[in-house]
């Protein structure tokens, strides 16, 4: 693997298939930086537009360039590990959760306590992907980390808010799902024409508990995340 130094972190880069390069962060524990943060900033460079996918462990660049050219481009990146984050509040209707019983039993906590912990948690956007429009959120206290289901639910609805391992997640499309569904987030996180998302990796999220009437209103007329912030 080739090694490049970028601000305070060291990147390891190699080619895993024709036109597919991966980037991992050397000693990620010490540098305490998620590859998803790096991936977000690389994807904002016009040279890499549409060519990046990332998880917290690894960045994949799908572009037909040589490893040398890739490294040269990466060296131009002014990577800011602690870039200023935006703060968004996201509404969740917790009565729409289908898995409360199992989660209360597993964690030994009541629904009220769990909701309170979610609302007070220091949550941020961890990464995207896995399914179209799926958003991973991290920063939940360890007391409410819970196991994913051993047998995934046949169908989880769009907007489902769930917990899985250390993460909370929001399903954008209806799909089979292994997460514990605790509610529904009825706003539009992605632009339906361009599939762009105002949320960026590392942005801060505050979960707001909403009541049935507001949920029904938003379900009937979904607003974008930006419109919702102005309310």
């Amino acid at each position, binding site marked *: 693997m080739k090694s490049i130094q970028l601000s305070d972190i060291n990147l390891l880069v190699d080619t895993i*298939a024709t036109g597919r390069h991966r980037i991992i962060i050397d000693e990620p524990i010490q540098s305490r930086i998620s590859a998803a943060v790096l991936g977000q900033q690389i994807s904002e460079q016009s040279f890499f537009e549409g060519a990046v996918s990332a998880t917290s462990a690894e960045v994949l660049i799908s572009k037909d360039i040589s490893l040398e050219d890739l490294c040269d481009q990466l060296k131009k990146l002014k990577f800011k590990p602690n870039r200023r984050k935006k703060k968004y509040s996201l509404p969740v209707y917790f009565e729409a959760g289908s898995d409360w019983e199992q989660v209360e039993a597993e964690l030994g906590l009541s629904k009220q306590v769990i909701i309170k912990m979610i609302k007070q948690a220091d949550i941020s956007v961890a990464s995207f992907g896995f399914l179209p429009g799926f958003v991973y959120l991290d920063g939940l206290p360890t007391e409410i980390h819970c196991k994913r289901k051993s047998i995934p639910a046949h169908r989880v609805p769009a907007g489902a808010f769930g917990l899985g391992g250390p993460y909370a997640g929001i399903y954008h499309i209806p799909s089979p799902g292994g997460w514990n569904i605790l509610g529904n987030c009825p706003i539009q996180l992605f632009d339906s024409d361009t599939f762009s998302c105002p949320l960026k990796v590392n942005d801060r999220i505050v979960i707001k508990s909403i009541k049935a009437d507001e949920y029904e209103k938003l379900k009937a007329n979904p607003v974008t995340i930006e419109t919702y912030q102005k309310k």
Partner: protein
Amino acid sequence: MSYLKIIKKGLYTSIQDAGRYGYAQYGIPQSGAMDAYSARLANRLVKNSEESALIECTYIPPVVEFYKNYIISLTGADMKWHIDEFAVPRFTSLYVRKGSILKGSAAASGVRAYIAVQGEIDVDPVLGSKSYYSGMGIGGFEGRLLAEGDQVKMKSKRSKWAFDYIADEERPNLTLEKLIPITRGPEWHYLDQDSKASFIAGKWTISTQSDRMAATLLNHTPDLKVDLKMSSVPVFPGVIQVPPQGKPIVVLNDGQTTGGYPRAAIIPTNSLSIFNQIRPSETFRFFFVNT
């Protein structure tokens, strides 16, 4: 008006083009023709650009009626195609008259066949592609598979009839036993010694559960053993993941963009066309190539 009408839908018939690129970051797969090589040949025969949308047929072909004179081509799997009562060859351009009916029978070799029509299939692209993707119900014909009674409109170019064919040596050979090239994946070393050996020496088949998202591989030797602890990483079509139950899964065109299983090996993109023509009843082998 210029259109084709679907008289019978076949097993899984959809509109596909070269794919939807640039959205993997948000989990949207590339989709597109599973046998991209045959799709390009089909487009070349009708003088369309190689990335143009066409009709992908899976195992059982549709029955299609033409409502105008068209230049078409048929590539990929051998569906024993007929236009009206006449048997017609694959890998050549064909002139079909208004009112003709194209039909075939279950694939005699291969799995996926392509019908290209000169001109442009007039459906709206979604996120830059006309490829149907079932996971979001986007692309294709109104966000779905083709169905009986659908009228697929064509934006026709002025017809340029010039007979063309693909030379024998350029046609994919779908009847030979297949040897699929692979390269080592980033987590190849997660396999134990026996599993590495059986991966290479083994005769493999594709499970009947396989689809456009993924193919599950079956082997006659014991299941592979992998060291499991790893975090979720990006994947793409051609990546062979080995989950804990030991049956490898090949990520395909409509597959997930991240995965939590070791990426043992990778089928190079240009070899996915032949891989995607393997039938569940066929055995095949892997061999290593250098990247």
